[in-house]
């Protein structure tokens, strides 16, 4: 086996130019495919980035002043949601996976020792963190049911707030900060990249605590809803709005009194875009691969033609057809395999370099972030290329093995 390999390396060295050209064709095919895949992934990541840490299947409902007269009441009536609405939705609308209140109080100053920050202050139940399950907590914990039951004075703060209030090296967890002049203990730090980072300027406290401090009973400003898997977001949104409008005597056509935003709407467009990107990448990528494959086939045919006399001599000296075919195929596999692997590695390395450059320079390229490659896909492409290279070599190799030594030796 080792002997055979040496024999193959020897012939490859004999045909340096041809070997290098074949290898380069394969290398280039895989290299370009990897770059394409990486660039496509970068675009997709960049677009996702724009959606922040929001999960991608939610519906938010909020209220305002009615714009249409309804049931004898004139327009301009202020609508307010309550936690009772949430209970009603849970009972009357099937297909809800998660539902949560979200209440805001006026922006206020948050201080720790002599440092302060200003941002949104929210009251939320613990379900809220399951709705926004993409928001990572870097330190500490989320708000839990005990906090709500005991109306504890705890907050979780965004990373921006933490950076403003605390010096480097200070652990924010357990520190007492003042939130609009109320002393509260920091339980956790989260990072929410939504709103281009503004969501990380927020401070979240238990909804019950907020109710106790600021009054207002069980009012809520927003209701977040996420559908069960397989439930259509648009259908769910319609049902939720219908129930709420009925409960608050709002005209079914009034889009100001009770309004909503459905993530499925932009997602639909984005998904279309992603399909477009994928189709494009596959089109170009397969084209590049095809060119590589044709290149290998060509070169294998030429290789065999060029070496017919040599094959004839070898057969006269006792080489069996198996010897001939396996040597030729091993040769093409070796060249395509090594070159393809090199293309893969260099392509991935280049992508990593670009990603590293983007990260470390802090450059914000719109719609391009963290280019990467689906490694399994690249390996599949490589295997395909090598496989086809072998197949391409197989036909001429079998033909070469079949012609008689005398015929082969006559060819020049």
């Amino acid at each position, binding site marked *: 086996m080792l*002997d055979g390999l*040496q024999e193959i390396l020897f012939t490859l060295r004999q045909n340096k130019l041809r070997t290098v050209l074949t290898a380069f064709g394969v290398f280039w095919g895989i290299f370009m495919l990897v770059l394409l895949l990486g660039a496509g992934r970068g675009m997709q990541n960049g677009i996702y980035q724009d959606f922040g840490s929001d999960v991608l299947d939610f519906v938010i409902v909020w209220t305002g002043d009615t714009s249409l007269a309804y049931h004898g009441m004139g327009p301009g009536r202020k609508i307010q949601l309550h936690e009772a609405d949430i209970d009603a939705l849970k009972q009357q609308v099937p297909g809800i996976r998660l539902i949560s209140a979200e209440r805001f109080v006026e922006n206020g100053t948050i201080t720790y020792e002599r440092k302060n920050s200003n941002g949104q202050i929210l009251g939320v139940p613990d379900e809220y963190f399951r709705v926004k399950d993409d928001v990572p907590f870097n330190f500490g914990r989320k708000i839990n049911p005990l906090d709500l039951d005991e109306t504890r004075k705890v907050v979780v703060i965004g990373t921006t707030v933490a950076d403003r209030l605390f010096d480097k090296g200070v652990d924010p967890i357990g520190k007492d900060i003042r939130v609009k002049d109320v002393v509260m203990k920091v339980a956790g730090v989260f990072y929410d990249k939504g709103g281009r980072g503004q969501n990380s300027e927020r401070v979240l406290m238990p909804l019950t605590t907020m109710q106790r401090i600021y009054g207002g009973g069980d009012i809520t400003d927003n209701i977040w809803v996420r559908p069960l898997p397989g439930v259509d977001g648009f259908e769910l949104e319609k049902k939720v709005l219908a129930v709420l409008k009925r409960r608050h005597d709002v005209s079914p056509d009034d889009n100001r009194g009770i309004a909503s935003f459905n993530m499925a709407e932009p997602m639909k467009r984005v998904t279309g875009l992603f399909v477009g990107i994928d189709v494009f990448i596959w089109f170009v990528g397969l084209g590049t691969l095809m060119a590589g494959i044709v290149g290998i086939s060509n070169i294998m045919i030429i290789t065999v033609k060029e070496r017919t006399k040599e094959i004839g001599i070898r057969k*006269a*000296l*006792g080489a*069996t057809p198996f*010897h001939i075919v396996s040597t030729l195929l091993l040769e093409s596999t070796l060249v395509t395999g090594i070159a393809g692997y090199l293309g893969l590695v260099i392509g991935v390395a280049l992508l990593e370099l670009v990603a590293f450059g983007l990260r470390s320079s802090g450059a914000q390229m719109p719609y391009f972030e963290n280019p990467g490659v689906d490694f399994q896909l690249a390996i599949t492409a490589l295997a395909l290329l090598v496989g086809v290279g072998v197949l391409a070599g197989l036909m001429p190799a079998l033909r070469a093995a079949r012609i008689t030594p005398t015929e082969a*030796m006559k060819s020049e």
Partner: protein
Amino acid sequence: MIELRDIQKYYRMGDQSVHVLKGVDLHIREGELVSIMGSSGSGKSTLLNILGILDSFDSGTYLLARQPVSRMGESEAAQLRNRMLGFVFQSFNLLPFKNAAENVALPLYYQGVGRRERNRRAEEILDMVGLSDRRTFMPNQLSGGQKQRVAIARALVCKPKVILADEPTGALDSQTTQEIMELLKDIHRRGNTLIIVTHEQDIADQCERQIFLRDGVVKSTAEVA
């Protein structure tokens, strides 16, 4: 050693069929030095190819060392060639990118002999044909006579039963021709069976027996005194 009975061979060219060998009978004893002569188109190269199992035949019997050689698989034929036969060609047929010793060692590679042993035996045989100082030379660095010596060494390296030489001196000048003939005769004296295809009378005259081929049949055989 070699027994041919009524060997027939057709070549098909398109829809035309050419009857090249029309029933060749031949008997060659072990250790003989035989020449096969005939004008071009007489079928002597075809006969040599059949003897060398390089080509198939359509009917008849061929016994090589009492073993019947008939329709056999390519692999079997290759192994038989490797073990039983050595070839010397008019155009040498050395692999241009291998040096003298590597060319000589090649048939041993197909026998699965290890590299070290291959090198040892190649050196030994190159010594015998008088090229011990040309081992690492590439074919294009060798003269015609030297190339043919390498080819002869290659034919000998597997210790074959029969050596087949197709116009071995056809590409050589007269002085080199004689040197190669002396080498071949020397090999014969060591007990090898040697069959030389030639159209040169003075080559044939140096063999023990001459076989004349005409129109695809053996016309005559003559012992040389």
